[in-house]
């Protein structure tokens, strides 16, 4: 187990290094720079901008800048934002909660709803419900999240003023209910996609399991259907879902970025977009690296959980 984790971690570090290379060079070679935003400051001159760029070290060769960034990262220094000169980790930290809240709530919701749709679809295969669920899931996968968000805002925030159209809480009223009230629409939008994925996988995992001999064995024992379903079928069908959950992390992160943009949700996705707009390189790199770590850890965790849940698997 320890050896397995060790080798996985080594592999992850290699991957992170590749990620950092791609991210860094694409970003720094991209046209535009962090100083452009100051160009319209009254009294700003080209000479002044050049001097600032020099002081920030932006005029050095890229490999040098990369090496400096990397060597700092290795000792835990993620750098400082150009925009508000806060440590990058602190900035990510302050946006992390919002994203995790959104992702967590919607993933939980998607898992519950998706599992049931998937299971029902599998046990009533080819029923009207199954058919509608299948079509629904396909459409769910096809609707652009942001558009669904806009429509949701139009319906439930403009036409029927039931939910706020944006933000995470009302200033001055940061109660649990207030958060929940703000969470409804973005969560709904993000859930749409994940529920579709989740129910599709769950359905096929259930169908797979239902064809298995041990389900027949369980029925032959005379167990009630709900016991067969929960203890035997779902318990096994959940196993591949652990991996699916791990693999969904990048998708959910992407979805969160879009949902955060539409609903002005102060999370990592919007931080990323804002920072990209300002060419705040350290923050953009920070978010990219952080999400890559998140993805890799998620996958690793999924594998470990899988091994815990499935007695057949030993991590070696």
């Amino acid at each position, binding site marked *: 187990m320890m050896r397995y984790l060790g080798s996985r971690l080594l592999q992850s570090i290699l991957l992170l290094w590749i990620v950092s290379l791609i991210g860094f060079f694409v970003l720094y070679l991209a046209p535009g720079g962090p100083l452009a935003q100051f160009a319209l400051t009254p009294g700003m001159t080209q000479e002044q901008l050049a001097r600032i760029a020099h002081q920030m070290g932006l005029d050095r060769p890229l490999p040098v800048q990369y090496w400096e960034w990397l060597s700092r990262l290795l000792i835990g220094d993620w750098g400082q934002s150009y925009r508000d000169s806060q440590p990058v980790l602190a900035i990510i930290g302050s946006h992390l909660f919002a994203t995790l809240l959104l992702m967590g709530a919607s993933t939980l919701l998607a898992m519950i709803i998706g599992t049931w749709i998937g299971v029902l679809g599998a046990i009533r295969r*080819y029923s009207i419900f199954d058919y509608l669920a299948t079509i629904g899931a396909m459409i769910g996968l096809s609707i652009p999240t942001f558009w669904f968000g806009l429509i949701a805002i139009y319906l439930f925030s403009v036409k029927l003023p039931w939910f706020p159209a944006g933000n995470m809480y009302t200033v001055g009223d940061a109660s649990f209910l207030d958060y929940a009230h703000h969470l409804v629409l973005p969560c709904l939008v993000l859930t749409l996609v994940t529920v579709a994925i989740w129910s599709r996988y769950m359905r096929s995992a259930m169908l797979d399991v239902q064809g*298995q*001999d*041990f389900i*027949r*064995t*369980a*029925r*032959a*024992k*005379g*167990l*009630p*259907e709900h*016991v067969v379903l929960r*203890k*035997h079928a779902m*318990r*096994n069908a959940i*196993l591949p879902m652990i991996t699916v959950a791990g693999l969904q992390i990048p998708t959910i992160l992407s979805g969160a970025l879009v949902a955060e943009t539409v609903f002005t949700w102060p999370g990592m996705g919007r931080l990323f977009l804002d920072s990209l707009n300002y060419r705040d390189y350290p923050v953009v790199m920070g978010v990219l690296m952080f999400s890559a770590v998140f993805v890799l850890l998620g996958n690793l965790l999924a594998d470990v959980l899988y091994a815990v*849940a*499935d*007695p*057949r698997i030993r991590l070696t």
Partner: protein
Amino acid sequence: MTQPILSVRGLNVRFRGRGGGEVHVVRDVDFELAAGQTLALVGESGSGKSVTSLALMRLLPGEPRCRIGGRVLLEGRDLLYLTEAGMRGVRGNEIAMIFQEPMTSLNPVHRVGEQIAESVRFHKGLGRRDALDRAVELLELVGIPDPLRRAQAFPHEMSGGMRQRVMIAIALACDPKVLIADEPTTALDVTIQAQVLELLRDLQARTGMAMLFITHNLGVVAEIADRVMVMYAGRIVEQAAVDPLFAKPLMPYTRGLLGAVPRLDIFAKEKPPLTSIPGAVPDPAHPPKGCAFNPRCTHRQGGLCDQRTPPLEAAQPGHDVRCLRWREAMEAA
């Protein structure tokens, strides 16, 4: 014959395909099974044996995908008319079943002790602890060494033979009156096969249960069965006690099957050549006209066998056959 425990009359199973067409896979099957008796159900893959056994347990998909007709009487109660809850009380309790694939028939994520205990808990209302104790007893009964420790094992930690013993333990958990064994030895090594057969015979002797033994292996039939029922394309084509059937098979198909069995009988005066039956089982959606076996039959008589569907007739008391030309076979024998 003593009073039958299980009596099947006119069993018919029809599947409906997704396209709407109906496939008739089990046709007019009748048989009886008495306590302590072993009935072998023999046939090639696709002949309808497994469907028959699953139909008895009502483990086939429900309507409209599958329709079961006829009567299945367990000590006089018609299982086909029981409610689903009533049927659950029968399954695993009065009729138990073991399957061909011990490797996949056990749930991989639960410990074997738990899988055995589960059945007892449900049917006998035992507590968790008591049920587990019973599971250990059963493991011992089916000849698993160190049963206390083995009860804690997961299926993947056991060999195929062991797993089949576990399956048998599950089946026997509630002292069933009827045990349906669907090719229980097919997936096992030859040496293990013998052990498992031995075990089943032994257990039957101890408990007096009736056994419906499904197999395509006539060698195994000779070892374990009292009576044999040969199935082809969903129909019983020959039915008799073991000895007469082996001695004097009347249906060409049965003869074919016997020919396909390699014999190690060193006392046989002359070794008959090993033969096989050409062709394959017909597609049940498109059965051939006349006798279902006629396209593959070496005794086929054109204009007769491909025109008329033969009835099941009693050639001798206790020996039924479904062949238009059984009399000729009888004479030849």
